[in-house]
């Protein structure tokens, strides 16, 4: 009986080995022949999607100190980029940003750099910090930005928090066509030396043309696993916070990451010039 136990202990755990491989060779490698990588992070609220993305952002600052890191944050929700101390806020001309402290009910003042076009935006950005970009319309703005970055021959990483805002399901008209273009772009974006990190709570909120174009999928505890994924749903359910399965085509491995907790002040961002969706809806009722 004891011999059986000794044997079972000697069976190698390959999940860590594969996790290390995917992390080193796919996500963090910067070979021009391979280009960048596209990673999506799936997980319910509070399981560490943003922590994982910020962990990768810090890793990139450590390992690739010249790389530009772009961070996308939502309007009217707690700012996530503030968890790191080095960031710079950029806003498209026409956007009037307001920062509201969520606890003290007072307005905060942060320096905001305005930009007109993407070439000038890229020149203003610096490595070793999060370059937070606010645009008028996330769908139009970020699809244009990604399309521009594809042709810009420098290494960049783009982190999109809640990417269902960029490629939502059930859009109509021009926005539907734009998201189709994004789906086409995503397939080639890594060749343009761009690494794209996106997170969402559920893939079902994402347009179907964008959904399956990512190279690596990271499942956090409780995430709904794709039917075609080699990762079992049970394995994902049994994860603790701070752990993740990485799935890269047919291979999968395990990683863990530290919590990156919020810093003071905790605030949200509002575009004063944007029409409030709720007001708009109520005015038509």
């Amino acid at each position: 009986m004891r011999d059986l136990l000794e044997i079972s202990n000697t069976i190698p755990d390959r999940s860590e080995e594969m996790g290390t491989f995917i992390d080193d060779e796919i996500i963090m490698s910067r070979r021009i022949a391979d280009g960048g990588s596209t990673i999506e992070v799936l997980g319910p609220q509070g399981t560490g999607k943003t922590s994982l993305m910020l962990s990768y952002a810090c890793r990139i600052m450590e390992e690739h100190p010249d790389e530009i890191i772009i961070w996308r944050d939502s309007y009217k929700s707690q700012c996530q980029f503030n968890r790191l101390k080095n960031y710079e806020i950029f806003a498209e001309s026409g956007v009037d940003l307001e920062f509201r402290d969520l606890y003290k009910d007072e307005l905060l003042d942060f320096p905001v750099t305005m930009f007109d076009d993407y070439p000038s935006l890229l020149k203003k950005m610096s490595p070793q910090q999060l370059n937070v970009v606010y645009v008028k319309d996330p769908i139009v703005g970020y699809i244009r930005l990604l399309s521009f970055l594809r042709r810009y021959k420098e290494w960049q990483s783009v982190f999109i928090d809640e990417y269902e805002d960029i490629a939502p399901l059930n859009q109509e008209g021009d926005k539907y066509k734009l998201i189709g273009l994004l789906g086409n772009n995503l397939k080639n974006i890594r060749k343009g030396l761009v690494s794209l990190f996106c997170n969402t709570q559920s893939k079902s909120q994402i347009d179907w043309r964008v959904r399956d174009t990512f190279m690596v999928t990271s499942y956090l505890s409780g995430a709904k696993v794709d039917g075609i994924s080699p990762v079992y749903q049970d394995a994902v359910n049994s994860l603790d916070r701070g752990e993740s399965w990485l799935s890269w085509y047919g291979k999968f491995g395990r990683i863990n990451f530290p919590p990156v907790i919020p810093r003071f002040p905790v605030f949200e961002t509002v575009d004063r010039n944007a029409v409030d969706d709720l007001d708009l809806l109520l005015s038509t009722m």
Partner: protein
Amino acid sequence: MKKNPQKQLRATFDDVGQAQDDIRHSIDYCIRFNTFLDEENRDIFINRLRTATLGLGTNKKVFYPGKNNTYSLGNVEHAAYWLSYRESNYVIFEGETVEIKELWKRLRDALFDVFPHAIETSIRISKEQKYSRSGGGRSVGPKNLERFTGDKQYDP
């Protein structure tokens, strides 16, 4: 692997294995001396039986083939409880007297069918097994997180 999973796994595995040894030794003793369990050993026997079979004995029945008829003692769990409460070294089935060591032998054979399943279950579904893999994997965090977050972290 921060939680020393192999040590935790060993806890359940060894416990079930040890309980099976205890049960086997008790039954071997009863067979050798054709005897029943006294009150103190009965408590220990039932306690260890729970761990040794993990309740998996309910699917297997124990029979004693007598001269005139085949008598059922119920499933393994039931037979073990029933036998542990005998207070003489023989049992009478429909007028046929049977030495209690014969029934202990039947129970031991049936338990030997159940024990491997209990061992397998102890490895496969134990809580320790689930947590034994916890914390695994490569850390993808930066080497020095404080360098990026500073000291103004919100800690409720």
